[in-house]
């Protein structure tokens, strides 16, 4: 499970204001509006968008549903929940998912969209029973201070309600049962046993890690707005490295961009990473040795290393050694799949062994000589291709709807039906856009 505190959390160091009432700004379409999201009426609200020292992750925190990327499902659910409250089945929502997927942003955006006042408690606040009772209970019952304004209670990071917050969870459950306002909670790991009473009282929404494409697109946008010299390849690398954590990606972008030489691919840290992966690859491919602890010191994840090995194996191995190595890699990947499918983290051991010793011992004897290793190209290729076939996808969706089939099938049918789809009357029946028509002409 990724840990949250990779980022400066602007909420943590300060105690919450005494009244807990967050003066909500009127909804504004200005999506660049910095930081309306935090609890504290801090100076951050008065910052102009280009203040250099504000973390990108806060500056570009999505503040409305329309600016939240990649989480449409969750948005629909939360809208539905707030609109129907209190006639919803459960009186609380529990947003869960890895770090940087937008749990807090979604909750805050929801408040903004519905013009609700937010009462937020996060991990920095003591959340034992007495505290909760004292601070949340009145709030959960009273009307908002601002007339006509509804309210939501946001319990950020409920998995942070720990042993020292004695009685916190049972009190929370009691609050949920009695509340007159929607309660929204966030956590990383919803399946911990201590959360089980909360779980049964809440509607769960899972936020998945964002796709590399989504993150890369956002990074591109931010670089434009920040006038960072843009290098798409590099942005993609940041996006890939973030593994779906948008906050980490924005932090990385800012870190690289703050140098005098923005987005120079030879940024030190990156060079370090590459040096270390080159050494790893050299050891695996050249030596014939027990290398099972080799990855421990690397800052790259096993999955990233797997991609590097995949890219470079044919540069080193041929024939039998190649076949054996690719088989070992396929086995590593197979266990990777099982880990993801069943959350069986125990299988990491196997993934690790197959992609270290499995590769190293695939050859009959150590190798020497110099090999130039390359950075994995596959993900970039996939990304580029997705950009390229975006038109084809929307076309396939229309064809699928029209012919009562699914998009996957329609994508295949397009290859066959291309001459038919070029006919004007068919294009009208499918209501094709100009872009889609242009695609068919190619």
């Amino acid at each position, binding site marked *: 499970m990724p840990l949250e505190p990779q980022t400066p959390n602007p909420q943590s160091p300060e105690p919450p204001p005494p009244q807990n009432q967050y003066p909500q700004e009127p909804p504004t379409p200005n999506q660049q509006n910095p930081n309306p999201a935090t609890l504290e009426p801090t100076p951050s609200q008065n910052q102009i968008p280009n203040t250099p020292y504000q973390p990108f992750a806060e500056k570009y925190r999505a503040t409305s549903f329309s600016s939240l990327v990649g989480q449409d499902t969750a948005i629909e659910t939360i809208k539905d929940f707030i609109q129907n409250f209190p006639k919803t089945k459960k009186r609380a929502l529990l947003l869960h998912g890895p770090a940087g997927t937008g749990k807090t942003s979604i909750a805050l955006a929801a408040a903004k969209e519905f013009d609700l006042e937010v009462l937020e408690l996060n991990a920095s606040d003591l959340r034992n029973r007495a505290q909760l009772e004292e601070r949340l209970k009145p709030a959960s019952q009273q009307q908002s201070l601002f007339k006509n304004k509804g309210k939501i209670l946001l319990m950020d990071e409920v998995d942070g309600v720990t042993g020292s917050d004695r009685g916190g969870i049972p009190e929370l459950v009691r609050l949920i049962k009695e509340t007159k306002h929607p309660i929204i909670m966030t956590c990383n790991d919803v399946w911990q046993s201590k959360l089980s009473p909360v779980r049964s009282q809440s509607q769960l929404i899972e936020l998945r890690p964002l796709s590399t494409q989504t993150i890369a697109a956002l990074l591109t946008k931010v670089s434009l707005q920040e006038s960072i010299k843009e290098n798409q390849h590099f942005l993609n690398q940041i996006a890939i490295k973030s593994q779906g954590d948008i906050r980490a990606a924005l932090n990385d972008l800012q870190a690289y961009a703050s140098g005098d030489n923005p987005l120079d691919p030879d940024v030190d840290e990156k060079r370090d990473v590459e040096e270390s992966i080159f050494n790893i690859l050299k050891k695996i491919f050249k030596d014939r040795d027990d290398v099972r602890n080799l990855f421990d010191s690397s800052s790259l994840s096993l999955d990233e290393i797997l991609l590097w090995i995949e890219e470079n194996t044919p540069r080193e191995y041929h*024939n039998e050694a*190649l*076949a054996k190595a690719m088989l070992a890699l396929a086995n590593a990947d197979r266990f990777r799949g099982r880990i993801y499918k069943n959350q069986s983290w125990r299988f990491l051991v196997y993934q690790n062994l197959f992609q270290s010793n499995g590769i190293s011992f695939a050859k009959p004897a150590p190798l020497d000589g110099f090999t130039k290793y390359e950075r994995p190209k596959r993900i970039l290729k996939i990304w580029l*291709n997705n950009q390229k076939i975006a038109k084809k996808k929307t076309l396939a969706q229309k064809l*699928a709807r029209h012919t009562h089939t699914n998009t996957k099938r329609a994508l295949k049918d397009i290859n*066959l039906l291309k001459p038919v789809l070029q006919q004007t009357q068919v294009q009208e029946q499918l209501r094709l856009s100009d872009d889609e028509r242009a695609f068919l002409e190619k």
Partner: protein
Amino acid sequence: MPQSDIWTEKYRPLLFDQLLGQQEIVKRVRSLVQAMNIPHLLLAGPAGVGKSTLALIIVKELFGDQWRENYLELNASDERGIDVVRQKVKDFARTKAIANIPFKVIFLDEADALTKEAQQALRRTMENYANTCRFVMSCNYSSRIIDPIQSRCVIFRFKLLEKKDVAVVIRRIAEAEKLTISEEAITQLYEASEGDCRRAVNLLQATASVSPDITPDMINMISAKAQPKDMRVVLDYALAGDFTNSRDKLLDVMLTESISGEDVIKAIQKEIWNLQIEPEIKVRLTEKTGETEFRMTEGSDEFVQLQALLASFVLAGQGKAT
């Protein structure tokens, strides 16, 4: 029906009697529909044998002209996640059916594309809306549908269409569109489409867009164009010992022609038997291919698995088995 010049739509059967090759199923479904009350249905079978068509006929029979207001088509593989499915189901089921029938019908295509968890969630949804909604689900393999859902449905297993059935469809269209088509061309259409009627009709229309005179050669040419054609090139590189080019080409084909690993593996599995290698090695390669396909259904990375397979082809090219 909005008018359509895509033949799979234009000539889609509208009545039970027009649905070919599935007489047993039609008989049973028709009697259910005549009682104006259908249970949840699970239609299992390969692509292009009439699952969606049957669902459409059912709703048209049930609701007459108002079928569109009472029918929702969802694609499990298109809709992102079960939450979307559930939301749409909820919105749709919230209002009562407009017709004389107390329920609406939801057609969930490719239900086997849903994960086990999503299916569990769907099972609750089916129960919660049982009064207002009937589910008609389609899948390729009923084994991929969890038992609790299977037990809530009446299951119909569709057969692959026989040549005579596809021939009837082809002739009917050929006549209406004023095409000339020989017996051999019909055979060719059937073989190229492997009993998948949608594909046969698409292939016919693609060929007809070139010339109304349908010949086996033309069909061959058109269908070869739409095949994952470069698969042979990929294998040839591998057999010649050029692994790097082989896999680059593979990724290229998969991306530009948007074909899935599953399609690739199917093409490879067929192609093995056309290769110039020892039959014994072909058997070993087939075994590898099957294992690769299984791993892909298990959730492994398609490309990593396919590369391992390609590496076996490199060895096969040297007369060695792995």
